[in-house]
C-alpha cells in the first residue's frame, strides 16, 4: 500500500478515492476480494425464487422488530435483568465510553480483549480507553493486524482485505516479539493465535459486539468463525457487549432464518463455525463464564433514522456487507475512502444519521444507482431509494416533501452557485424569448468556452454547445424532404 493513506474523514471522500484509485495493489486487493465474495454468495443462493422467499422472511422479521421497537427493547431489558445482566443506555459515543471506563475502573482492569464489534469502532473505544491507560486488544485476526499497524478496517466483515500476506508478515515481524518474518499464512495465523492466547487468559474484561438480541429470551447472539468471540465472552471475569438499539428481534426462532441469510450473504458460507447464544452470566455451580455481564445499548443517531418512515428501513440492516461486495463504486474506491466506520452502500445510508448529513454529504452520491445493493440485500432494504432521499435532503435546507423534520446537517451539500444555476435554468426555460436569446448566444459564442472546465474536464472532454440549436437546424431543413439515407432515421 502506498505511503499516503486515506484519512478517516468522510469530507475527504473524493481525495481519498483518488489515492486508492491510483494504487494498483490496493485496487487488485479489493477487486479480487469482491469477486471472490460475490461468487461465493451466488453459489449459496442458486435459485432466485428460493432467495426471494427467504429474503421476504428476513425482511418481515426485521420490519416486525422495528414496528415494535420500544416494546421489544422494554421486554429485552426486563428479561436480561431477570438473568442478571446489567443493561445500560447510551445516547452517544461519549456516554458509551464513560460506561466502559466506569466498569473497567471498578474492576481495576488494565487490559480488555475484544471480539469483533463495529459499534466499538463507531465509538472509538480503543482510543478512548488508551487515554485512560487501558489496553483494549483486538482479537479478531483481521482487526488485530490492523491494530498493530495503526490502520482502520476497510470492510465490515473482512476488515483487513486491503492487506496482503506480505503486509501481514512485515507487521507481525515488526510488532510481535519473537515472531520472525514469514509469508506462510498458516504460520502467520499460528503466530497470531499464540500472541493472543495470553491476553485471553489474563484480561479481566472481555468486550464483544452483538449480531442479534432476542427480546423473548433475553439472549445475546454472536456469529463468528474464529472462536475469539467465544473466548472474549467466556474467559474474562466481566463481559461487556455493546450494540445499537436496532439489533433487537422478537423471537428466538427468528434467529434461524436471519443467521442463514447473514452467513450466506456475508461470506457465502451456509453456516459459520460458531453461533454463540449467551443468556446471562455464570450461574450457581457453573465453573466458567463471566461473573458479571453488561449490555450497552447505543443510540448515536439511530433514533433519527427511526423517526421517519422514509428513512426507517436503514435500521433493518444485519451488517452482512453484501451491498459493499456488489457495489461497483466500493470495489474501486475501497472501504477506507469513505472515512466512516461503515463503508459502502450501507455506510452511505447509515452514516448521515450516525454523524450528520453535512460531513457525510458526498457519500450518498458515491453510487451509480445501478441497484445491485438493493438487489442483494438479504433483508430487502431499498438502498437506492434511501440514497436518493438523502441526496435530496442534502440539497435542501428545509424538510422536503414527505419529510417531517430536518435531518442533522440537512442541506449540507447545498451550494449557492448550484442554487443560482438552477434558478437561472428555471428562468431561461420558463420564458421562450429568453430561451432563444440564450441559445443563440451560446451557439454563436461557443468558441469562447474554456477548454478546462472545473470539475468536468478532469476525466471528460470539455462541454461545448453545437454550432446551431436544434430548433435552427430544423427550421433550415423544413423545405427539403428528409433524404432516405439520412443516418438519423431510426434503425429498422
Amino acid at each position, binding site marked *: 500500500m502506498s505511503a499516503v493513506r486515506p484519512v478517516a474523514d468522510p469530507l475527504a471522500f473524493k481525495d481519498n478515492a483518488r489515492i486508492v484509485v491510483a494504487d494498483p495493489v490496493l485496487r487488485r486487493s479489493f477487486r479480487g476480494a469482491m469477486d471472490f465474495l460475490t461468487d461465493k454468495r451466488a453459489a449459496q443462493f442458486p435459485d432466485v425464487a428460493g432467495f426471494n422467499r427467504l429474503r421476504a422472511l428476513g425482511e418481515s422479521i426485521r420490519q416486525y422488530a422495528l414496528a415494535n421497537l*420500544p416494546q421489544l427493547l422494554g421486554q429485552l431489558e426486563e428479561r436480561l435483568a431477570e438473568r442478571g445482566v446489567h443493561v445500560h443506555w447510551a445516547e452517544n459515543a461519549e456516554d458509551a465510553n464513560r460506561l466502559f471506563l466506569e466498569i473497567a475502573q471498578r474492576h481495576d482492569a488494565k487490559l480488555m480483549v475484544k471480539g469483533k464489534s463495529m459499534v466499538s469502532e463507531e465509538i472509538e473505544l480503543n482510543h478512548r480507553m488508551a487515554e485512560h491507560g487501558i489496553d483494549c486488544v483486538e482479537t479478531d485476526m483481521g482487526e488485530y493486524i490492523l491494530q498493530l499497524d495503526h490502520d482502520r478496517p476497510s470492510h465490515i466483515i473482512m476488515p483487513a482485505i486491503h492487506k496482503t500476506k506480505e503486509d501481514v508478515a512485515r507487521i507481525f515481524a515488526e510488532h510481535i516479539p519473537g515472531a520472525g518474518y514469514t509469508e506462510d499464512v498458516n504460520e502467520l495465523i499460528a503466530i497470531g493465535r499464540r500472541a493472543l492466547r495470553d491476553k485471553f487468559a489474563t484480561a479481566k474484561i472481555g468486550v464483544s459486539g452483538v449480531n442479534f438480541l432476542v427480546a423473548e429470551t433475553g439472549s445475546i447472539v454472536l456469529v463468528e468463525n474464529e472462536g475469539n468471540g467465544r473466548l472474549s465472552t467466556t474467559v474474562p471475569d466481566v463481559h461487556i457487549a455493546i450494540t445499537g438499539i436496532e439489533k433487537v428481534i422478537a*423471537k428466538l426462532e427468528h434467529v434461524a432464518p436471519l443467521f442463514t441469510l447473514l452467513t450466506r450473504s456475508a461470506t457465502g458460507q*451456509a453456516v459459520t463455525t460458531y453461533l454463540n447464544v449467551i443468556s446471562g452470566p455464570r450461574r450457581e455451580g457453573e465453573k466458567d463464564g463471566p461473573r458479571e455481564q453488561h449490555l450497552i445499548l447505543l443510540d448515536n443517531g439511530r433514533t433519527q433514522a427511526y423517526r421517519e418512515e422514509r428513512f426507517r428501513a436503514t435500521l433493518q440492516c444485519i451488517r452482512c456487507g453484501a451491498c459493499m461486495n456488489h457495489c461497483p463504486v466500493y470495489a474501486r474506491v475501497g472501504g477506507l475512502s469513505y472515512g466512516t466506520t461503515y463503508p459502502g452502500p450501507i455506510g452511505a445510508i447509515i452514516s448521515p444519521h450516525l454523524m450528520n448529513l453535512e460531513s457525510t454529504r458526498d457519500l450518498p452520491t458515491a453510487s451509480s444507482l445501478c441497484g445491485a445493493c438493493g438487489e442483494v440485500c438479504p433483508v430487502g432494504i431499498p438502498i437506492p431509494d434511501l440514497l436518493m432521499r438523502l441526496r435530496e435532503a442534502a440539497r435542501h435546507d428545509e424538510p422536503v416533501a414527505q419529510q417531517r423534520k430536518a435531518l442533522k446537517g440537512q442541506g449540507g451539500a447545498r451550494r449557492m452557485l448550484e442554487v443560482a444555476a438552477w434558478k437561472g435554468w428555471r428562468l431561461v426555460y420558463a420564458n421562450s424569448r429568453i430561451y432563444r436569446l440564450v441559445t443563440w448566444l451560446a451557439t454563436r459564442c461557443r468558441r469562447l468556452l474554456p477548454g478546462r472546465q472545473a470539475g468536468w474536464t478532469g476525466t471528460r472532454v470539455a462541454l461545448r454547445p453545437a454550432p446551431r440549436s436544434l430548433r435552427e437546424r430544423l427550421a433550415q431543413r423544413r423545405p427539403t424532404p428528409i433524404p432516405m439515407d439520412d443516418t438519423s432515421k431510426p434503425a429498422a
Partner: protein
Amino acid sequence: MSAQASQRARSAIFARLRDADAPVPHAVPDVQGYYDGLPATPGDDATRFAERARGWQAEVIETTPEGWPAALAALVSERRLRRVLAGRDTAIADTLAAVLPSMDLHWYDESLETFKPTLFNEVDAGITTTLGGIAETGSLILWPDVREPRTLSLVPPLHIAILRASTLQPTLHAAMHAQGWAAAMPTNVLLVTGPSKTADIQRLLVYGAHGPKQLVILLVRDEAMP
C-alpha cells in the same frame, strides 16, 4: 451516578422513539410457514450430517451404540493424547472412565480461575456430549452446564464430541422447537460447525484460529432404521 446517566439516556431514547412516525402495523412473521414450504431433502439425516460436517473439515467417525467407547479409546491412543479432559457425571462419564487410561483422563472439577493455567497449557483434548446436531449444515448443538463448562469445547486444541444420530434435527429452526430452547435457555447454547477458522489474511482459509484446531465427531448410529 452512571446509573442516573444511563436512566437519563434511556428516557431520552424512548421519548425519541415515541415521537417517531407511527409504525405501519406488521403481521407476525410466519417462520414456521417458510420452513414447512421448503422442498423435502432426500436421504437420511445422519448421512447428510456426516457429509456436511466433513465439508467443514470435521472428522466424522461413524460408529455404533456398542462400538463408540472402543472407537474413542483407539482415537486417544492413536493420537497419543496425554491429557484428555471431560465433565464429571455426564451421560458418558462412566463409559469414559471405563475405557480411557486413568492417567490420561482428567475431569473438569475446578472453576476456571484456578484451572486456567492447566486448561490453556496442558490439555490435549476436550470431550463433550452434544444435545443434538443439525443435518442441514453439519452443526453440533452444545448445551454447556455445571458438568460440562463452556471452555471444555473451546480452549483445548482438539474437541471430541459424541453425537447420537437419533438426536439429529433437519434444521436449526426444527431443533429450537423440538428441543424447546426458548423455554429453558441455559447461560450458553452453541452451534459448532467444524474447527475454528479464519480467512482474514488475503482470503486464504486457515483452520485453527482461536478455538480448537481440530474437531472429531463420534457419530453414534443409534437411530431406528426405517
